[in-house]
């Protein structure tokens, strides 16, 4: 048959099917009375025809066929047959010789083929999470959380996971440069010594800018530098600005610090804009804490309530029980309203007035009812707001319970005032020398332009940087510094908990640790020799940490244990050395602990003196006067007079853009927008409709005398009066991947602070690469949810359907559907997974972890647009209307409803989706070559070398979790952007290689299962029942499970008394798309929202009918 005619038929069929599926979906939704209306995009909500077109083309568009003159199928087969014959004739040759090169002297702790794990610290952001890094044959290949670490407790976010790839980034600096030309270390040191010589007597004209140095040795390095150049300004710089919290606490509690936060003790969290689960301060640690309050089971019938008051839908907002949508400018008024309400109830006189607000009054009432068990936070830069927040927490008795001013946070000690002063000093000529250590303010500060000018003006500009980034490019001397995995370091991000960072690998390039450079330039000595950082670090710990740790008798043992564990918990007392040099001024940002630590550090290399003693830190002193002072701070001026308030926000993956050359983070879909590669303008659906634009239409955003053109992403939950633009894009000097990707939106607010903007349509289109919209569940609903009130009454709430429809009543397990297939027997292990939708925040750490563990290729934007992303694990994000489901059975009907109103402030469910390892796997039955078969342990295995790439399996998978290798990656736009030889070092050698033309998917991390089995064999475990069950019930941990900061994923043996079995037996447990009868090994736990929702009407019967219909 003519190929062309086929195509026409296909088209006809496609359009017919589109109409049919629409009819089905309408019928489905019509019968689902009382069910919540759920949508994955605004287009789907408004029934935009483009959605159904996308769905019909789910496996790709029909190829373009020409005028019929091309090769016909039979001819093609002839040719290809001949080619195979020829190819097989040549394939008889011997393989090339391969070599096995053993070590000359094998390192004692290293066994080729076995991984070593080392504890270290994450330095991708300032949070300072504890890590365990997997090293194979000396190469770090996988980052996991250190479960014993007291702060992060095993949590690592997506950025931290992806950090290991930064190590193998060929775009890092390969050596030092002087005056822009490649140099060597000796001439550079000579040049630096010459340039800095003048400052030895005139230190005041020199400034050293560093990120937060919280560890004692990190501080001591700076102190040594200060000693060499007396009077040198030390300015702490971080891209994230939280200085208002510190400033407010200086006034309210006479302690210049950010209090330690304990979400795990809070029953009620109110956040004004702070995205504490996504990007704010220590998101991984906070997620860990928060999720522990969200766990509900038959044994634990309590649950926290989370209220988010914000402008754009943040990750935290998407997980909040209640969410108020406000403008940025309204925040101050609302916080004050809450403060006034709390003041009135507790008898304090604030001396301010604020307009009353019903919803705030309700929150105040709730908070007052549970004093000491709530937590109020804000991300505001406004000292008055932070002062009011501190006041609210104080009045509610939260200090000492959910907030801790003794074990305060030191992860971000940046001081905006000091930065402003430095910039002014450079401008006035008072400071002529800048040493910039691992910071990039010329890109990621709120005022990059001012920084660029300052660096250009400085006579001496030295950058200690990993990259020739925007800042280093402006500096005359660039000392190439190590990646964190090549460096030593220490941190004290929470006072009293010290984290030790050890290197995993020698520097790959000709780089030098920044601390080494600083110590050398400062002429510091340890034991009479010029100091490098490791002996310096050890000596500092011997002097300062050991005394705080109770003077261990054997310091070597203490040190070894600290390095091994990666952390040490010590007293919160300050180290005081009488007679320490008085001329060194304490840095402005420092906490009392830190000041004392520095004072002692300057005395280096003098050995610990007997007079050294500990001093209890002064208690915080709360005064109402301080609060009043804070509240008197005037509100920040809003620049410009545009129609919309402008929100610039860090994304969960890229934050402030430091890792903009990391392809994993670009390809990780944003948790809320589900877009990849590049930034966009978030417009609320109503705003976009008013402007006449839809997703991917380009708009021009005008503010601050600049215009930025970005494609639109329709963003449910965003306030109609605001537009939100992601930070971290549009870099110019980060590397081949990040350069020119997206737009830098800081230009819209050149002075930093708040601004208004105008938005106009340009008429251009720039497709945004979304990851979710192109998979179709044919309108089947895979989410189950309920409210806390309902669940408390009935633990099966929201999950009632399981009891009834389609289940085999004779079976022990009601979930086993009737089937025409013989059931599989699992005499040994039966692997299963349960994902708690109540804990999952959608942060994406599992996605990146899976990518790295399984060597999943990055495909690039154009391929994502062709729905060819390779992620084995994805997180589906569903929006639904807020509040109870309509009792009267309202349907999706654009003629009756204002559908866009549903997207004003929707509720969100994040649902991780991976291969469900079905017992009745639809993929297995259609594979013509038995490449995908069922294992005796319940795995749906994929033998890649057997796969011939028919893609039937993907077509037949109701969960859309199979991924086809269209190419050998890197391919297309990704080609040449990474150095293959270098990136190959990051690959996991325990994973099978997949080439193009092969289907791949989640394997339940079968390599980890096999690794545990090998361990069991080495330990000589005997399996008495001869059924192969030699792993302990919870012994195997999949990559996604291990990395989940929320502990939402449990994995284990369903045939044993495992955690996952317990979850499986919980009434909340359900199988996704149970109506298709696949009997997945992955199950989910019903989402429970702790909202004030009234009880929704029961709707099992409708569910039943709908499911039946879908089945038929």
């Amino acid at each position: 048959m003519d190929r062309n005619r086929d195509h026409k038929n296909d088209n006809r069929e496609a359009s017919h099917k589109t109409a049919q599926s629409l009819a089905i979906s309408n019928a489905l939704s019509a019968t689902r009375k009382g069910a919540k209306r759920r949508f994955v995009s605004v287009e789907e909500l408004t029934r935009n025809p483009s959605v159904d077109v996308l769905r019909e083309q789910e496996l790709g568009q029909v190829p373009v066929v020409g005028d019929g003159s091309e090769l016909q199928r039979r001819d093609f087969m002839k040719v290809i047959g001949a080619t195979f014959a020829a190819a097989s004739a040549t394939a008889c040759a011997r393989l090339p010789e391969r070599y096995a090169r053993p070590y000359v002297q094998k390192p004692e702790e290293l066994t080729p083929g076995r991984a070593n794990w080392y504890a270290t610290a994450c330095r991708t952001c300032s949070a300072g999470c504890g890590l365990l890094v997997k090293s194979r044959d000396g190469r770090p290949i996988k980052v996991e959380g250190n479960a014993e670490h007291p702060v992060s407790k095993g949590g690592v976010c997506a950025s931290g996971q992806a950090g290991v790839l930064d190590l193998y980034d060929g775009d890092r600096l390969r050596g030092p440069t002087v005056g822009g030309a490649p140099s060597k270390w000796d001439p550079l040191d000579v040049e630096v010594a010459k340039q800095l010589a003048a400052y030895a007597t005139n230190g005041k004209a020199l400034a050293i800018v560093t990120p937060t140095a919280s560890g004692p040795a990190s501080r001591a390095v700076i102190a040594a530098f200060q000693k060499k150049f007396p009077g040198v300004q030390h300015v702490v710089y971080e891209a994230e600005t939280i200085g208002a919290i510190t400033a407010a606490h200086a006034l309210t509690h006479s302690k210049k610090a950010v209090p330690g936060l304990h979400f795990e003790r809070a029953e009620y969290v109110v956040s004004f804009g702070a995205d504490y689960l996504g990007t704010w301060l220590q998101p991984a640690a906070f997620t860990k804490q928060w999720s522990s309050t969200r766990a509900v089971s038959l044994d634990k019938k309590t649950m926290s309530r989370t209220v988010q008051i914000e402008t754009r839908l943040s990750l935290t907002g998407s997980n909040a029980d209640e969410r108020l949508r406000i403008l940025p400018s309204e925040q101050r008024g609302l916080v004050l309203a809450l403060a006034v309400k709390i003041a009135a109830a507790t008898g304090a006189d604030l001396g301010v007035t604020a307009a009353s607000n019903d919803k705030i009054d309700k929150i105040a009432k709730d908070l007052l009812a549970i004093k000491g068990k709530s937590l109020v936070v804000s991300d505001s830069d406004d000292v008055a707001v932070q002062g009011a927040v501190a006041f609210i927490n104080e009045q509610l008795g939260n200090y000492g319970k959910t907030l801790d001013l003794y074990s305060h946070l030191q992860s971000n000690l940046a001081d905006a005032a000091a930065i402003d002063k430095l910039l002014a000093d450079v401008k006035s000529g008072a400071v002529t020398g800048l040493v910039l250590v691992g910071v990039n303010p010329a890109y990621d500060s709120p005022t990059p332009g001012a920084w660029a000018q300052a660096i250009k003006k400085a006579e001496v500009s030295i950058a200690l940087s990993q990259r020739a980034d925007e800042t280093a490019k402006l500096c005359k001397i660039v000392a190439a510094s190590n990646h964190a995995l090549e460096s030593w370091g220490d941190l004290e991000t929470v006072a009293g908990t010290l984290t030790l960072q050890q290197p995993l690998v020698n520097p790959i390039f000709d780089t030098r640790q920044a601390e080494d450079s600083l110590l050398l330039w400062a002429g510091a000595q340890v034991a009479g020799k010029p100091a490098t950082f490791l002996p310096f670090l050890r000596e500092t710990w011997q002097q300062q940490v050991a005394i705080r740790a109770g003077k261990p008798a054997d310091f070597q043992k203490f040190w070894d244990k600290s390095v091994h564990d990666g952390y040490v918990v010590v007293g919160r007392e300050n180290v005081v050395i009488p007679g320490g040099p008085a001329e060194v001024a304490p840095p402005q940002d420092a906490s009392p602990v830190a000041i004392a630590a520095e004072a002692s550090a300057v005395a280096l290399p003098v050995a610990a003196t007997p007079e050294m003693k500990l001093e209890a830190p002064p208690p915080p002193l709360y005064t109402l006067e301080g609060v009043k002072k804070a509240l008197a701070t005037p509100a920040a001026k809003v620049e410009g007079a545009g129609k919309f308030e402008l929100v610039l926000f860090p994304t969960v993956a890229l934050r402030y853009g430091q890792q903009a050359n990391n392809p994993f983070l670009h390809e990780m879909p944003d948790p809320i927008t589900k877009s990849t590669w590049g930034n966009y303008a978030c417009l609320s659906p109503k705003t976009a409709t008013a402007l006449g634009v839809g997703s991917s239409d380009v708009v021009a955003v005008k503010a601050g005398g600049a215009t930025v053109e970005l494609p639109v992403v329709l963003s449910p939950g965003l306030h109609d009066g605001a537009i939100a633009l992601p930070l971290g894009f549009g870099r110019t000097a980060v590397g081949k991947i990040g350069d020119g990707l997206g737009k830098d939106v800081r230009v819209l607010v050149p002075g930093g602070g708040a601004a208004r903007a105008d938005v106009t349509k340009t008429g251009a289109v720039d497709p945004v690469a979304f990851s979710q919209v192109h998979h179709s569940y044919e309108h089947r609903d895979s989410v189950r949810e309920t409210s806390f009130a309902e669940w408390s009454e009935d633990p099966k709430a929201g999950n009632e359907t399981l009891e009834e429809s389609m289940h085999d009543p004779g079976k022990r397990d009601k979930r086993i559907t009737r089937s025409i297939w013989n059931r599989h027997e699992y005499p040994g292990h039966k692997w299963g997974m349960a994902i708690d939708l109540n804990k999952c925040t959608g942060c994406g750490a599992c996605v990146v972890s899976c990518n790295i563990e399984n060597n999943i290729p990055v495909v690039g934007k154009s391929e994502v647009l062709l729905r060819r992303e390779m992620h084995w694990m994805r997180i589906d994000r569903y929006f639904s209307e807020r509040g109870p489901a309509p009792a009267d059975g309202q349907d999706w009907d654009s003629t009756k409803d204002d559908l866009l109103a549903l997207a004003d402030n929707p509720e969100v469910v994040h649902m991780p989706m991976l291969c469900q390892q079905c017992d009745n796997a639809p993929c297995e039955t259609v594979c013509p070559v038995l490449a995908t078969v069922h294992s005796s342990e319940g795995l749906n295995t994929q033998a890649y070398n057997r796969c011939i790439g028919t893609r039937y399996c993907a077509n037949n998978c109701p969960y859309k979790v199979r991924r086809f290798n269209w190419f050998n990656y890197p391919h297309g736009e990704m080609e040449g952007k990474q150095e293959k030889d270098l990136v190959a070092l990051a690959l996991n050698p325990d994973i099978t290689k997949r080439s193009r033309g092969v289907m791949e998917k989640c394997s339940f991390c079968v390599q980890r299962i096999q690794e545990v089995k090998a361990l069991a064999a080495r330990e000589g475990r005997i399996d008495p029942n001869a059924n192969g069950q030699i792993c302990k019930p919870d012994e195997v941990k999949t990559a996604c499970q291990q990395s989940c900061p929320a502990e939402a994923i449990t994995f284990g043996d369903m045939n044993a008394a495992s955690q996952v079995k317990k979850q499986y037996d919980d009434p909340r447990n359900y199988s996704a798309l149970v109506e298709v009868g696949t009997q997945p090994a992955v199950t989910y736990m019903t989402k429970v929202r702790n909202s004030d929702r009234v009880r929704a009407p029961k709707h099992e019967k409708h569910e039943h009918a709908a499911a039946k219909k879908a089945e038929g």
Partner: protein
Amino acid sequence: MNPRTLTLRTLRLLLALGLLAALSGCEYTDVTVPTYQKGYKPVQPISFSHKLHAGDLQMECQYCHFGAAESRNGSIPPVNVCMNCHKTVKTDSPQIKKIADAYEKGTSIPWVKVHNLPDFVSFNHSRHVSRGVACQTCHGPVQEMPEVYQFSSLAMGWCVNCHRQYSEKDSAQFGQTPPEQFKDMHLKPSTDCAACHH
């Protein structure tokens, strides 16, 4: 001849050549199955005799290949293991001098791999060694080989055959009896694809 037909023929020829190039190109060397290399006996850089060491001198296999019990890799011994004895034994032999030279200079010896498995198979030595499978089961009478060669086919059928034979259940099914030494260990060697292909 019709010019269009001519173009088509040229196109076909080009396509055939292109596919031939692609198939025989480097992309596919990684997945070429090298299982039928039975008897492969490459020339090694140093003429080390297993017959002398493992046979005549009766040294334990795992004295040198100590990684086999610990790791998936069988482990070629590091040079310092050779030097444990050869610091004093036969130091004047030209072959030993090669080792001593590599040891002095810190350069690795490029032994030619005899047993090559394709990239899509994982074989874990430690799982087999720790369950008591003798090295010779797969590697043959190494103690009699002056030069090591590939004794077994290492083909999938060969692997699976053994896995079936050693399993109590499967061995009955296939009319085989498990070897005596494994009788009480209740082993169940897997025949799942993912046992090796992962």
